[in-house]
């Protein structure tokens, strides 16, 4: 079973390209501080401008779609392999893709949050117009659900995806949120568990119960995100994937009690890593990748990430093709391309989240063998990391959240948000 992240390798031992990526001021990718004052007006205008619902998909057919040689790809910042060549940022796997297929990729790091990005493309989707993107990376959750529910995604034709069939890990096929991978193929996946600062705790933390331990009153960080109630349900022995409204209320009661007892320092929207490093909190709910990177990028940082004994909350970011895409064949060709284990290995070496292609591990080891010294140690650390290549037992221990309909999501929010926000 997976316990903690591998011993942190010192920065000098890491692959230089890895360090370049890791030491960038990477914003907490899962965090969101919606400072989109300008977006607000747009959202209102969008909301009002289109009071009629429409979904114009259905006209589309894979049999008539043709390759165009162009791909507009929307992704999150620093979420793909990249290098700096002559002062310019280049993406090796994208360049390789263009070389192999002749498809030019217009790669844009425009997604800062699922909801804010959805807000940008929603007016066009509603109007039945192209969004300007052929491929986008969206986390499993309410936004992805809405996109599927309103036919705002192009269903995939799996005859284009032989690599997916052959190389996708078992836990990435037929996920609960998208049965049969009708619309999505995983980009990367990650765990939400707990992290702690060993200088501030009495020995190792292993259980979610520590988040509720009065011993750490005022030193516990929780997230202002749906990860929190899902982990609390795991603490209460409830499977979040089958939880009912009554279960949600039990979780809410536990959270309210925890809050009223003064145990929670804060419901972090972001920056919980700083809080852990600065000693503001001793224990916090945390994303696996954030802790891995925090330890690599800041010297002296020795935070521990733990998969709690009660289980861990899992999320997956997914590639999907928005409805009315202008270059769907190019998009699905790329989807197939990233499931090539050689390509997935290059990406995993940079991204450090969980890759959906377990077979890429041998190429990471191969790359490690091809180099020596510090590069080798860095690459081996990735190949050995249970956070990049978890085994079947780890996955058996991981739980997705339940697929919520818009009305269920409203109920969910009305139960949990007053707790995070007050």
């Amino acid at each position, binding site marked *: 079973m997976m316990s903690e992240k591998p011993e942190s390798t010192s920065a000098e031992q890491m692959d230089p390209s890895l360090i370049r990526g890791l030491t960038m001021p990477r914003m907490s990718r899962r965090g969101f501080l*919606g400072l989109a004052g300008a977006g607000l007006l747009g959202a209102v205008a969008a909301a009002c401008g289109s*009071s009629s*619902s429409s979904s114009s998909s259905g006209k589309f057919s894979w049999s008539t779609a043709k390759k165009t040689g162009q791909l507009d790809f929307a992704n999150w910042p620093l979420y793909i392999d990249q290098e700096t060549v002559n002062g310019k940022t280049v993406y090796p796997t994208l360049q390789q893709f263009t070389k192999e297929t002749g498809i030019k990729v217009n790669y844009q790091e425009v997604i800062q949050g699922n909801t804010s990005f959805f807000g940008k493309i929603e007016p066009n989707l509603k109007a039945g117009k192209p969004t300007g993107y052929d491929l986008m990376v969206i986390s499993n959750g309410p936004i992805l659900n809405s996109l599927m529910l309103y036919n705002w995604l192009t269903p995939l034709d799996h005859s284009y995806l032989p690599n997916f069939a052959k190389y996708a890990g078992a836990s990435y096929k037929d996920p609960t949120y998208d049965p049969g991978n009708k619309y999505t193929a995983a980009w990367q996946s990650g765990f939400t568990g707990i992290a702690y600062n060993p200088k501030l705790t009495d020995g190792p933390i292993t259980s979610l119960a520590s988040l509720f331990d009065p011993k750490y009153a005022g030193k516990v960080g929780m997230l202002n995100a749906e990860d929190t109630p899902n982990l609390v349900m795991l603490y209460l022995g409830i499977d979040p994937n089958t939880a009912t409204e009554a279960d949600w209320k039990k979780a809410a009661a536990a959270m309210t009690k925890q809050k009223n007892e003064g145990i929670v320092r804060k419901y972090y929207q972001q920056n919980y890593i700083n809080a852990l490093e*600065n000693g*503001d909190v001793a224990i916090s709910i945390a994303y696996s990748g954030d802790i891995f990177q925090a330890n690599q990028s800041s010297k002296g940082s020795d935070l521990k990430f733990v998969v709690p004994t009660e289980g861990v909350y899992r999320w997956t970011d997914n590639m999907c093709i928005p409805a009315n895409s202008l270059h769907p064949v190019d998009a699905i060709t790329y989807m197939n391309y990233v499931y090539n284990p050689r390509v997935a290995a290059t990406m995993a070496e940079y991204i450090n989240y969980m890759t959906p292609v377990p077979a890429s591990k041998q190429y990471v080891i191969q790359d490690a063998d091809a180099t020596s010294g510090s590069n080798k140690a860095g690459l081996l650390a990735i190949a050995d990391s249970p956070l990049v290549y978890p085994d079947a037992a780890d996955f058996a221990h991981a739980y997705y959240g339940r697929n919520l309909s*818009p009305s269920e999501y409203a109920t969910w929010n009305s139960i949990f948000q007053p707790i995070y*926000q007050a």
Partner: protein
Amino acid sequence: MTITAETPISGEVQPPKLHPAVRRRRIKQRFTIVGLLVPGGAWLALFFIAPIATLVILSLSTGNVGLGWHLTYTWSNFSQSITSYGPEFLHSFEFGTAATIVALLVSYPAAYWIAFYGGQRKTSYLLVILLPFYVSQLIRTISWQFILADQGIFLTPLKAIHLLPQNFHILATPWAVIGGLTYAQVPYMLLPIFAALERIDRSYVEAAKDLYASKWEAVRRVVLPLSTPGIFAGVLLVFISAVGDYVNEVILGGTGTGVIGNVINSQFFVNMNYPFAAALSLVLMVALLILVIIYSRALGTEDLMGGGTY
């Protein structure tokens, strides 16, 4: 007695018959005035009235993002705003008021000193005050998070010499939020006050002194009253933006410091419950408007209430 349209009302002065040329000129003037009002009026209509109308319609609608919003005259969003998020509204106004008062107490003496004793270096002093504001507010607020951290550079030494107990913390308290708000708002208070003080004719102060006013009395009875337009404007600027601010709370606050700005933000961008977010925004706006009207009536200068000059 009935008054018909033709009956001249007693006492009313009949307008004198105008020479045609004069009348033409008057009409022309009227057109000029209308013409001058068009750009501003259009601006207002486009960027103020239209969004507000949109917000009102949205707040009374039901539906969801996928199906669209339909005007159903549902008022429950408004009642829910108050019942579910009363404490957050209250926090916003408490923090906003506290930050405004502190910012005023800090800014007035500083502005006074610069205006009266700044001499040739006035602009340099103002620049020094404004300099930090060339850096994004977000970054400055996050810096405070580092400075005030429980084991940060400020608290660690004080705890080491046992001036403060080990579990003492500033972050995640209302004081941190008020401090952050004040810090962010000081220039908006200082600049209008400085402008008002700068305009005061120095001979008034001399005259007060000639009439045996002490220095303090001259300030209290001459300078302070003459600078009220600046104070009034500064307080309005600071109070309104401090009440709506949520960045400081998100970064510096903790449990029990939630503010309404953040609730509105997450209703828009997390829940996509646009009607509820619109209702919350309107409630906030109306509450602010009422307070501002009361404030103007009580303390406002004629200047801002549409009166004459000062």
